[in-house]
């Protein structure tokens, strides 16, 4: 099936894959946070921080999924700054929780 408007530079596809890569990078950081909690021996603070890291990863997955759905349009709309702020918030959340987990 041929699409009515196809960008020969495959820009939407590249952008979609960039969101996927970024989600993967967040997953790597989240698994390192999980390893950190195991090392810390499971006090209440590391467990709380780990749950916040996992929550921020899930939030990032939601933002990425939402954006990828919009990228299917022939002329994708501009990334909303709400989505951008949410994505940055997830990274900041992971950084703050990481600081709280340090031994």
């Amino acid at each position, binding site marked *: 099936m041929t699409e009515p408007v196809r960008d020969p530079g495959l820009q939407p596809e590249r*952008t979609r894959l960039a969101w996927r890569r970024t989600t993967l990078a967040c997953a790597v*950081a989240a698994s390192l946070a999980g390893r950190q909690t195991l090392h810390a021996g499971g006090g209440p603070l590391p467990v709380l921080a780990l749950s916040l890291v996992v929550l921020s990863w899930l939030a990032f997955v939601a933002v990425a999924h939402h954006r990828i759905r919009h990228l299917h349009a022939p002329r*994708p709309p*501009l990334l909303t700054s709400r989505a951008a702020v949410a994505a940055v918030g997830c990274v900041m959340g992971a950084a703050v929780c990481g600081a709280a987990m*340090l031994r």
Partner: protein
Amino acid sequence: MTGGRFADAVAGVRLWFAPERLREEGNTPDYRFSLANERTFLAWLRTAMALVGGGFAVDQFLPDTGRALRLALALTLLAGGAVCALRAINHWIRCERAMRRGEDLPVSRFPVMLGLAVGVVALLMVIVVAVGWGG
């Protein structure tokens, strides 16, 4: 002109939360340029995430290092990640605005500073591992 720069920064942060104000000025650029800008934003977010992951890794994989040094390295990397993420969204919105207004894209010293900082941290870690400082 630190006052002017500060006012610019505040206006920039207000723009993050009011995207409709961005659409009020200039012309909508080709969507492909906006998507390229979005991918640059995501690449900076990945850089930020890598720094955060590096902060976790320092704390876990340098257990023989003295606590103060290990905490300092980990906190530096975590803070670097947070700054990188904030800078990512700021640069994204400034590029988008410059494209709408038909201006030159903003230039920045940030990549050089980040490169130098990562180089210093990497060198410090090599020394820590090779010499066994603080062990």
